[in-house]
């Protein structure tokens, strides 16, 4: 694998994660627990789709990628490189919130590591999304603490959500073939380094919320190799339905 192929693999998996979780979280629009939260969660879902678009644009402009809309709406599930965490249906609100918390802390660490990236387009994007991510984690942390402090039911439901989400969230950091090459070229430090930092950051919040990470889990890998849950195919079916009716149409 050469450096450009490694970059394409890295950016594709980042973008696919953002697109799919953005689409999933947007499914809460109109159904959020209260109006204020509905607006905040929907708005952050849009941010995620924006990040996906920006990453697909980098592929198009610098790495001979296809048009972002075509990448998003026309690829079959097996061509996607997202992790299983983002594919799962929205479930209960505590599941979606916990997924949002774990994912956004992971995203923050990943983009922070790109501030020093030798690949300038990624470095620029990382600086651009900094403020958005700061808000996303602020929002996630506040909800986790709020619900864990709200009594026995709140705390036990959040702990159960964490137990469900954590092995899936570890899949964000599925080791890639080109990790060493990308680290060598100072593109980013590789999944293992990001994972360590992520555990440290989420633990800081989880301790305050009196939640504990489940032990002896098996990380859910496979997404980065194109192996997915059946939920992804159903999601893609729905997401691209209108676009596929006339892929050449201008909007």
């Amino acid at each position, binding site marked *: 694998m050469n450096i450009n192929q490694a970059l394409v693999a890295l950016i594709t998996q980042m973008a696919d994660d953002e697109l799919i979780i953005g689409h999933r979280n947007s499914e809460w629009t109109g159904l959020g627990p209260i109006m*204020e*939260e509905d607006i*905040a969660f929907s*708005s952050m879902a849009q941010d995620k789709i924006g990040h996906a678009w920006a990453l697909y644009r980098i592929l198009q402009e610098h790495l001979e990628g296809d048009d972002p809309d075509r990448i998003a709406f026309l690829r079959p599930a097996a061509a996607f490189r997202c992790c299983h965490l983002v594919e799962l249906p929205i479930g209960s609100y505590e599941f979606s919130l916990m997924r949002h918390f774990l994912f956004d802390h992971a995203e923050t660490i990943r983009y922070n590591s790109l501030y020093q990236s030798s690949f300038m387009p990624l470095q620029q994007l990382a600086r651009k999304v900094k403020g958005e991510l700061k808000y996303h984690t602020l929002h996630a942390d*506040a909800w986790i603490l*709020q619900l864990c402090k709200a009594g026995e039911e709140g705390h036990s439901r959040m702990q159960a959500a964490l137990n469900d989400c954590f092995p899936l969230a570890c899949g964000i950091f599925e080791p890639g073939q080109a990790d060493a090459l990308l680290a060598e070229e100072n593109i980013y430090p590789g999944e293992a380094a990001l994972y360590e930092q992520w555990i440290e950051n989420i633990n800081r919040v989880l301790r305050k919320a009196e939640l504990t990470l489940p032990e002896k889990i098996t990380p859910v890998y496979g997404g980065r190799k194109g192996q997915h849950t059946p939920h992804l195919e159903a999601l893609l079916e729905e997401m691209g339905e209108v676009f596929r009716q006339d892929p050449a149409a201008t909007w």
Partner: protein
Amino acid sequence: MNNSLDPRVNRLRLDHTDGPVTIEEGENWNVYEVFHQEKRGAHHEHVGCVHAPDAGMALIFAKEQFGRRKKCVNIWVVRSADILAFDAEDEDMFANNLEKTYRDASGFRVMEKINKFKSQAK
């Protein structure tokens, strides 16, 4: 029968109480007034309100509710109950304002002097 779809109302379990309803701290949400600042140094202007369990969450909600479009550099939230205001019937205290034009600052002619000073300063 309590048929509300609002979880804040349902939490109160209005159907299940014999005696008076007591609301525990944090059980019912407060209304917070939101003030947004368009640029540093400018006044914070009132833009609306949000419901939230505490001030921290109110600020988080207000950011997306009132700060996601156009320019905004900061937001204040304050519990509506903490704002002291006159009663509507006290509006008569302000009734004669329009007659007291001698209190208007509009009579002073200063722009000529300011412009003269500016041109000298160049």
